[in-house]
């Protein structure tokens, strides 16, 4: 189960590339990716509950997803479809609703290209996220929803405390000897 992780790479300073294979034909992956009641069943990423999925699947049509985490934090994203090739390719903009004051939503928005490629009944989904700047790209990775940076920092704290403790006990030991 753990072997089928999403693969995340950073091709350029402004890009994020996400790759993952699914054991299903691409028509089904595309269907799950573009049907509101199906999106609401997976987009939460096990971090809360999807509260809204609106999809107007046509070029120039808009989409909006929202979810709430167990601690009550609400996050929402929206965008516009730029290019649609059913079962093959979906290009849309994406903007996070809640960028810090002073940051324009446009500067923080990304262009996302999802490609669905089928081989032997399996589908490889590739999502290329193109940000407008390295800063914006880094902020997306660092936020990683509610447990992104927070998680990393908590982990760091644990390691730092453990390391501080071992240093202290070593020092005490030294004095006692």
């Amino acid at each position, binding site marked *: 189960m753990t072997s089928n992780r*999403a693969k995340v790479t950073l091709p350029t300073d402004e890009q994020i590339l996400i790759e993952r294979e699914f054991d299903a034909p691409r028509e089904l*992956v595309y269907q799950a990716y573009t049907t509101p009641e199906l999106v609401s069943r997976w987009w939460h990423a*096990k971090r809360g509950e999807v509260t809204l999925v609106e999809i107007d699947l046509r070029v120039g049509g808009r989409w909006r997803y929202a979810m709430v985490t167990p601690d009550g934090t609400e996050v929402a994203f929206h965008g516009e479809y730029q290019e649609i090739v059913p079962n093959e390719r979906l290009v849309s903009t994406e903007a996070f609703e809640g960028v810090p004051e*002073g940051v324009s939503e446009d500067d923080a928005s990304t262009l996302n290209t999802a490609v669905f490629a089928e081989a032997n009944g399996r589908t490889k989904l590739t999502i290329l996220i193109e940000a407008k700047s390295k800063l914006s790209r880094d902020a997306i990775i660092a936020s990683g929803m509610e447990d992104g940076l927070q998680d990393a920092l908590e982990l760091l704290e644990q390691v730092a405390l453990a390391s501080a403790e071992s240093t202290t006990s070593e020092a005490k030991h030294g004095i006692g000897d």
Partner: protein
Amino acid sequence: MARAATTADAFNAVAEPRRREILDALGAGELPVNDLVHALGVTQPQVSKHLRVLRDVGLVDVRDQGRQRLYRLNGPALKPIHDWVSNYERLWSDRFEALDAVLEDLKRKEQGAGGDE
């Protein structure tokens, strides 16, 4: 200690709760000192002191914009102590695991419609 000196410095920098709060606030985007003062509810000299430590270990970058100094997280600097991309990767892994379950459902329904079993 086998750890490199710079890594140990970064560990020390994030071991301070206020500095973690600053990094957390900057995780959402670039901010001037005044916004950090507001967000943390401490004095500007205190915030400035913490920012200096974070800059010294490379966790935070600064640039001037007009009369303002804007601070931002230097995400990749977290890399020596934690692969910062892995959290984002975990988000998508969890998301796609949930998608797997939806796809299993869809496959089952298709088979059902085909009259099998």
